[in-house]
């Protein structure tokens, strides 16, 4: 089907009305999750089985099938959600498919596949009853089960691109910028820097040519929410980007994302092409006079390329070496032009801020951290997955109510935030609220939003060694403190874990953390010591014990060797 270019907001609304008129909300729809984890559990076979069953019984008129992005509850995939009613089926196998189809046609539920409470056995049928979902506020990720990411019409059917219409037809760029500033939208990529101020800097920079960039690199280990967002609902991110470009006055946009997720690439490419066909990208968008081209770029598998200035070098086609930020990239970025970079989740927040207003947005969350936050919940947790909660939600809600606590009946030892440049806090701080500034003060900044539970058996020295090993491989190697300092920290931590600790190792590590933090060129090196800092703050005895035990053992060994000689 060829699509027609839309020349005005009215034409887009007419199209939306037509799409909705062709859809019967009462017609059952079976949505099969094809998110990264479900895909890994062969959800494709489940989707195929549904297709075969519907074909065999010729049910096309009575039943809708949809392959979607991540639903969220990855631990229990493959996930299937049946509407109306948002009936959730978990761990669905191809063999379960005929039963689900039959029950759906009869308006019944397959009881054995719904959620059962592990303790009481109580059932939860609908999404809003399932503990994993019911404590969440799914403003960003909630549309995922309703959308086939390959179909722009599905996004239009849930109200997509209405915010763009509002921005282009009812607001000036300054008004859009002002709305985002008043919403106090803070960057979701790690820094928590106010997006509005960043936009303003780029907007006010003297150069006429300006760029906007989606950072979809998501290099933080055990962070997977941005992929879930971008793969599952690419148009939401794109809509945010177009609105941002309008406010900033940018003519060209870049989506920078991972090369190793074939589905992600396919969906984003397709979204860009469909948006272009509808005239939502390109020349004179919806007849507004505003034009924007967006192209897709890929990281090629190294963490530092997610660092903003390194990312921009990479888009230029150069080695992704960061450059010192004495001039900000928002003033001088790609090809030395003002370049505004925000991450996937930040952009995804923009459409709802424009549609529903800054007042609505600031009514959600905590005082200095507004809105919701996507969290990748994993590690030694019962229910891992993609979670969305209002900022300010106590960690206890995330860990226990949503996450179901620690796996295998163990107790919680630590909560780790922010991947290899984040930090670990002890279980006793479980009532801390999820808040940019609060978590930073505790030494476990939210980062992009990867939350890991660590159980009682976790060796914190080994965790630090593991994280440092990860980072040394991801360093670009340009500056001395990052390249050499991290290597020396890794060697020292490796010695500790292997039982070869020396007196003075902790002081050595502290020196290296300090010098690497102060001296390094980019954020990778500057924050590489943060996990260790948090360890020294909360788990120091564990490190001290390693050294004193090891030093004692070595002394004993030497004594034993000595006495052997005299015999």
């Amino acid at each position, binding site marked *: 089907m060829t699509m027609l270019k839309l020349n005005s907001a009215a034409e887009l609304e007419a199209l939306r009305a037509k799409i909705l008129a062709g859809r019967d909300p009462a017609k059952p729809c079976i949505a099969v999750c094809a998110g990264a984890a479900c895909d890994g559990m062969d959800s494709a076979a489940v989707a195929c089985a549904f297709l075969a069953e519907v074909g065999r019984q010729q049910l096309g008129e009575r039943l809708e099938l949809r392959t979607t992005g991540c639903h969220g509850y990855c631990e229990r995939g493959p996930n299937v959600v049946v509407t109306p009613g948002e009936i959730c089926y978990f761990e669905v196998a191809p063999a379960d498919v005929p039963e689900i189809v039959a029950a759906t046609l009869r308006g019944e539920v397959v009881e054995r596949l719904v959620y059962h409470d592990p303790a009481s056995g109580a059932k939860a049928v609908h999404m809003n009853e399932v503990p994993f979902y019911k404590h969440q506020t799914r403003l960003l990720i909630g549309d995922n089960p309703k959308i086939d990411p390959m179909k722009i019409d599905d996004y239009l059917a849930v109200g997509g691109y209405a915010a763009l219409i509002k921005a282009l037809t009812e607001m000036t760029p300054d008004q859009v910028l002002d709305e985002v500033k008043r919403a106090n939208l803070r960057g979701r990529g790690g820094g928590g820097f106010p997006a509005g101020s960043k936009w303003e800097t780029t907007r006010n920079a003297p150069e006429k040519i300006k760029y906007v960039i989606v950072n979809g690199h998501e290099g933080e280990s055990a962070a997977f929410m941005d992929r879930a967002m971008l793969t599952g609902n690419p148009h939401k991110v794109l809509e945010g980007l177009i609105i941002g470009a309008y406010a900033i006055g940018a003519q060209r946009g870049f989506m920078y994302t991972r090369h190793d997720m074939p589905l992600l690439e396919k969906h984003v490419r397709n979204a860009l092409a469909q948006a272009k066909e509808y005239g939502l990208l390109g020349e004179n968008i919806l007849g507004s006079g505003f034009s924007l081209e967006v192209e897709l770029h890929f990281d090629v598998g*190294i963490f*530092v390329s997610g660092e903003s200035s390194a990312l921009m070098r990479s888009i230029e086609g150069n*080695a992704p070496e960061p*450059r*010192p930020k*004495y001039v900000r990239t928002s003033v001088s970025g790609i090809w030395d032009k003002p370049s505004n970079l925000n991450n996937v989740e930040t952009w995804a927040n923009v459409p709802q801020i424009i549609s529903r207003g800054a007042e609505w947005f600031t009514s959600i969350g905590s005082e200095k951290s507004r809105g919701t936050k996507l969290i990748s919940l994993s590690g030694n947790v019962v229910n891992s997955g993609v979670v969305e909660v209002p900022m300010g939600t106590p960690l206890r809600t995330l860990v226990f109510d949503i996450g179901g606590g620690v796996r295998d009946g163990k107790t919680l030892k630590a909560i780790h935030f922010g991947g290899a440049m984040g930090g670990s806090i002890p279980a006793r701080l479980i009532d801390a609220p999820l808040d940019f500034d609060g978590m930073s003060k505790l030494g476990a900044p939210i980062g992009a939003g990867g939350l890991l539970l660590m159980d009682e058996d976790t060796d914190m020295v080994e965790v630090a060694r593991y994280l440092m090993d990860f980072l*040394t*491989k*991801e*360093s*670009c*190697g*340009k*500056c*001395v*403190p990052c*390249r*050499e*300092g*991290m*290597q*020396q920290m890794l*060697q020292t931590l490796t010695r500790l874990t292997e039982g070869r600790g020396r007196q003075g190792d902790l002081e*050595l590590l502290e*020196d*290296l953390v*300090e*010098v690497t933090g*102060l*001296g*390094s*060129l980019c954020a990778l090196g500057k924050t590489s010591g943060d996990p260790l800092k948090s360890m020294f703050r909360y788990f120091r005895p564990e490190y001290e014990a390693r050294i004193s035990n090891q030093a004692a053992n070595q002394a004993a060994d030497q004594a034993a060797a000595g006495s052997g000689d005299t015999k």
Partner: protein
Amino acid sequence: MSEIVLNIDGKEVAASAGMTVLQAAQQADIHIPTLCHHEKLEAYGGCRLCIVEVEARGRKSYVVSCLYPVEPGIVVRTRSEKVDKIRKVLVEELMAHAPDAPELVRLAEEYGADRHRFDKETSFCVLCGLCVRYCDEVKHKNAVGFIENGAVREISFIPEIAAKECWSCQECFTLCPTSYAQAAYLLTEALAFPGRREAHSHAHAHATPEPERRVIPITPVAATA
């Protein structure tokens, strides 16, 4: 050009807009140590030895002076307890690779660095990139480049280009703080186009030696533990 006055080590220093703190300091005869800096090359910010303390708008930060632009009224301290500590540890880190490089030995003395603090891994190269950048920016030959990333990063002569270009140049040898550029080149020569040196010396056995085809003596290495 507009004059900017800043304070470096208690001294009022005049500089022009667009200059870096390092340039302003050098102009005022204030010494800041550098390893990867070269006036003919674009500032690189790799060795971080030129780090200084800057107080601007009431905020103290640590910046590398080779890249930090001068601003009116900023207060720069080229030495402080913290600055010295950073330099000391950086020198110690580099001495794990090149324990006897003369410049590092001198810096170690000045900053009290312990050359044995870290286990030796004598690769000799400190990855200052002078050879790579000089070959690129001044000679436009790109006969030597960086390969790999992080701790395994190396410089590497590209035999195809080196065979054509290096013989008559070899200018990077004298820039190298550790003599490693020369060693790497000779190794490339031996592996990729051996025999050239002998052929050349036979052909020119009786001719006056041409000055540009020199091999600079490698700095004598003191015996280290």
